[in-house]
């Protein structure tokens, strides 16, 4: 259950960016999570609620954008959707494959309400 630590880091990044940009209210945080990043989306959502409870980010919504996995065969260069981390090429049956997409774990953008208006 490392999602709480990840959620706390997302809250920290949000605070850093908001401070830098002079923003007082962040309504939404958009995060990219690859399906092979080792994160359970539901757990990350509830962890984010826990991490931001009673803070200025309490009402901030976490939007999780799931990124599907892509693997590439190093032998025949075929790209395919792997079965989790099972990366056996469906074209030539080679084991020599690499995950090229699906391990993302990043804060993509923030949406803020400009409270100075």
């Amino acid at each position, binding site marked *: 259950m*490392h999602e709480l630590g990840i959620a706390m880091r*997302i809250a920290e990044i949000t605070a850093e960016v908001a401070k830098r940009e002079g923003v007082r209210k962040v309504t939404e945080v958009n995060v990219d999570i690859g399906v092979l990043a080792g994160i359970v989306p539901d757990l990350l959502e509830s962890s984010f609620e826990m991490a931001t409870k009673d803070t200025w980010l309490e009402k901030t919504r976490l939007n999780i954008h799931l990124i599907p996995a892509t693997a590439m065969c190093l032998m025949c260069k075929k790209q395919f959707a792997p079965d989790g*981390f099972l990366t056996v090429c469906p074209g030539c049956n080679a084991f020599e494959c690499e995950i090229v997409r699906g391990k993302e774990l*990043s804060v993509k*953008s923030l*949406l803020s309400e*400009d409270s100075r*208006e």
Partner: protein
Amino acid sequence: MCETCGCNQKEMVVAEDVLGKNNRMAAENKALFNSKKILALNMMGSPGSGKTTFIIRTIEALKSETDIYVIEGDQFGSLDSDRISKTGAHVEQINTGNGCHLDAMGVSNAVKKLNPSKNALLIIENVGNLVCPALFNLGEHQRVVVFSVTEGDDKPIKYAPMFHEATHCIINKTDLMDFVPFDLNAAIRNLEKINHKLQVFSVSALKGTNMAAWIDSLKKALGKL
């Protein structure tokens, strides 16, 4: 103000890796290890897979050739660091409390306390857990996952991220292979499906059998630094 609809919302592009802070610290650790020609291993695996016994065997085989330092990660207590201290290796215990893995900052602090000498071997025993430690880079050169025959030959498939991120895999407790339904060939094939680059060693750390190939690979890696 938003140019599309006139609302007072503003979108800010961030594009920051959530693990970036840990990865930057890990890079600092690795730079320090490289500058002192220290070989750093991150040992991971389930609780009870035999990591500590395997580390002790490794220390016994190499302590006459190089200085060895161990960072011991456990949720609570110092049982493992007490065992390792008896080999003469320098040990620093990290208790993570409710934390389920070590991170690069904790390792950095422990390294400062240990102050390892040049050309040393640094073994980091992660918290016993086949899931979370896979995500956190510590600055190691080798990621070693220890799994034992009593856990079953299907573990690489069931806990794929750990085996996918590892560089070396130790199949441990081979002395028990006659007593449990473990198919060594099936295990190796499962490992290949998850990670074709993985270097695999089958040993019994308790009996000290078949350790030579692993020890030789470490000697070679130490010589290359």
